[in-house]
């Protein structure tokens, strides 16, 4: 086991290195650079663009150097934990990600908790009462949730809130709390706003989990060991939770590691629509404007977390599932 983990950790180094090259190369693929985009925006808003000013900026941002030099400068400081400067924000990338991280983790964690609890309850109910009215309803809602894009749901909610309640939805705080220091009132205000993204983002994940849990549990429920246990008079609930549910949970465990990158990427499109101060919109915007160091460092962080998350999932799986062997 220890050898396996060590081997996996060593393999992570070249993987991440390769990812860094690929992500940097992909960012260079679209024509132009950050300054081309900047010029277009300036111009669209009716501003004069002076070529000399653009030259000065190109030199200041180091965009006049060959791409491989840019790559090495970036990766060198990345290894030191300095993610570089964002062109668009004029601020260090570390700061930008950091100031959004707490709220991103809060939103993602709340969403995960929501979808797991709901999915677990409904999944178990559906599997134990298959083809009942309740099961059909849960399945129906689940499929709708799975099929509706999150951003669509967000837009509908926003429209309803605006046209029927005259209220602009979006953000995580009311105007009077944005600048206020943290207090219980501010936390309460955040919770009042949090439910919308949680439901919007949570529904699709919930639906998927319900279906997986239901299918797995249904398979297990008909197996002879369950029949035997019931026949021997073990109470129904006890049988259910002691054996088949534990097995049916394996897909949960195998995907838990994948949510690690989600903790910092947030649900990008939904966050954009709902105007959440999370990291997702930051990444999207960085990619659109070719804000190289911000986008690059972001993608690197996500990749590292994905690699670590996969490892965690594998380890957890090995621990919980006795069928897995290391040979």
């Amino acid at each position: 086991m220890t050898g396996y983990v060590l081997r996996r950790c060593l393999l992570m180094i070249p993987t991440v290195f390769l990812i860094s090259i690929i992500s940097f190369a992909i960012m260079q693929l679209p024509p132009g650079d950050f300054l081309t985009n900047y010029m277009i925006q300036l111009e669209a808003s009716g501003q004069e663009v002076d070529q000399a000013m653009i030259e000065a900026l190109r030199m200041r941002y180091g965009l006049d150097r060959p791409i491989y030099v840019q790559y090495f400068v970036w990766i060198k400081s990345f290894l030191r934990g300095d993610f570089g400067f964002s062109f668009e924000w004029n601020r260090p990338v570390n700061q930008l990600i950091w100031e959004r991280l707490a709220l991103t983790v809060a939103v993602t964690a709340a969403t995960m908790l929501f979808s797991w609890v709901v999915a677990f309850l409904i999944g178990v109910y559906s599997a134990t009462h298959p083809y009942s009215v309740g099961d059909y309803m849960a399945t129906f809602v689940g499929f709708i949730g799975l099929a509706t894009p999150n951003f669509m749901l967000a837009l509908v909610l926003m429209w309803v809130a605006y046209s029927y309640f005259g209220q602009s939805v979006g953000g995580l705080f009311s105007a009077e709390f944005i600048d206020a220091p943290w207090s219980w009132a501010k936390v309460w205000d955040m919770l009042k706003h949090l439910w919308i993204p949680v439901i919007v983002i949570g529904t699709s994940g919930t639906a998927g989990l319900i279906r997986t849990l239901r299918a797995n549990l249904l398979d297990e429920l008909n197996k002879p060991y369950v029949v035997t246990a019931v026949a021997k008079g073990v109470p129904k609930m006890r049988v259910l939770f002691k054996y088949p549910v534990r097995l049916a949970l394996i897909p949960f465990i195998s995907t838990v590691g994948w949510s690690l990158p989600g903790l910092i990427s947030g649900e990008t499109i939904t966050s954009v629509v709902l105007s959440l101060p999370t990291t997702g919109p930051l990444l999207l915007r960085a990619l659109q404007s070719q804000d190289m160091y911000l986008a690059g460092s972001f993608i690197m962080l996500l990749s590292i977390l994905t690699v670590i998350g996969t490892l965690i999932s594998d380890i957890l799986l090995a621990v919980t599932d006795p069928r897995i062997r290391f040979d």
Partner: protein
Amino acid sequence: MNRKRLSMLFLVGCILLTLVTGLAAAAEPGAQLNLDAYEKLSGVSISTFNEAPELAELVTQGVLPPVSERLPVNPAVVVPIEEVGRYGGTWRRYGHLDWATYGYLLHEPLVRWAPDGVTVEPNLAEAWEASEDATKFTFRLREGIKWSDGEPFTVADVMFWYEDVLLNKELTPAIPTWIRTGDNPPVFTAVDDYTFTVEFDSPYALFVEQLACSGTQVFAPKHYLKQFHPKYVDEDELTALVQEAGFEAWYQLYGNLTNVQTNTDLPVLYAWKLTREWGAEGLRAERNPYYWKVDPEGKQLPYLDRVAVYYTSDWEIAFLRVIAGESEMQAVGSNLADYPLYMQNRERGNYRVYLLPGVFPTEPAMMFNQTVKDPVLREIFRDPRFRQAMSVAINREELNDLFFFDLADPRQATIPEPSPFYEDAFAEAYAEYDPERAKALLDEMGLEVDKEGWRLRPDGKRLELTIEARQPDVWVDVAEMVEKYWRDVGVATVVQVRENALWWARVDANEHQVVTQGFMTHPLMIGSSSLNLTGWPAWAPLWAQWISSGGATGEKPIPEVLELMELWEEYKGTVDADARNELGRKMMQIHADNVWIINAAGRAKPTVAIVHNDFRNAPSDWLYGGPYGMEGGFHPEQFWLDR
């Protein structure tokens, strides 16, 4: 006797009239005058100055010096656009670009544009003088202006910018076009603490006007920025600072610190100063206690306490907040396509909608590449009859109805009003919809029609055109209609939508045939314009190259364009306004005859400004655009909230 009395009456009447007109001139809404000039014109003397209660409090605490010491000797008096206001309130704005949402409020050049958009008024400089040949300019700064940290603003700040920023190769690798004639920068000379001269090696007739435009600051806070400049700091010390901040070179740190949206320590001369840097929750700014303008009652401006900009991931979400009534005023980021939505929500959002005229002469222009690679196409494109035909084939009224709510003004590409050399004839040249005339012109050129009704090129191939359209989306819509109009007269046209950066790359490489393009032009042709090939050269990239490189690269233009460029050179150096305007008129005549730039719809659509009903003193019809300093040119310091 009677006669004498009459003439006396007449005389008195004349005096009264001058007095009244004098007063009227002084009271022109939105004008800005020096205090002494204002007092002379209005006959009202401003002896005491007032300040915001917040600041008065700080004065009693001894934190701030009294208002009379903070104001300059001869402050600028702003005549309010609607009325004298009250102190207080926060101005909320939304968006994802800090330099637009906040930066566009900051516009304090040496001189500024008067409300008419073509004359200049004193601003940081209280007076100026140009030599007769327009090579030497003398500026007199307002004595006693202070930076937002209380340090005096003097000629030292101008000389610092000149010697250590403009002439520093690392900060300014290339001298910007607006501060040079020919290849050389001018010579700045300090006369005394408040007077300096600028000397060019050849005439620069509109230099003062150029300084009124945005992006042409000729000063920087020396006392603060010299701490980060190698000329003033020990090298090791500076290297330590640079590394600590995570940069590689000093000019990167310096450039970062001059950013008004992220450096809260940077001293400014604006009405507000930054208190919280741009980040996840936007940015905040508060009143600059040393602001150097007053209202006609002697109250120190600005009226508004604070500016709060909130981050939204894009403009659409920003305007969702704005139309919910959560902004006091915002123009930047509005979209004319959403005009019905803005109008629909006026009552609920408690705001009014203003349409501000812009400085884009076209919406959008259709440009035939005169230097296109295909020699046969080149010959066709260069025939004026072809461009005239393509222009009259376009139904501008219909485009205006379809896409611009009848708000664009259908016309040909020319200098926009209020230019002194604007003429209706230029705007009407080949702007009428007349497909029959288009066909006749094409016939006259000898472009034959094949069996299916398509025009043929002289080499027998079908004449096929590709319009490369780019965002904004409405340009793509317009291009698709133009495709239909041109097909109607037998020219096989297709539209290709290109992503912005790719579009630029292709135009740069001279790969295009026809493109949609918008461009800016100041009514006095200050700054770049496509009309004189100093910018947006998509209609002749190789000629523009030839001109800017002095004939070293590119291709030599045709005689008409060479004449245009000679007129332009003469225009820049002509001091006499009438003679200069005549040159401008001649240039526009050449354009009207040749229609190299075909305007598809009309003069640029207006910019929509959404103004809360409690928000006062916002202009409803001022020119909005880069040269005018965007919202910053609207005297944001005299905006106030009636709440």
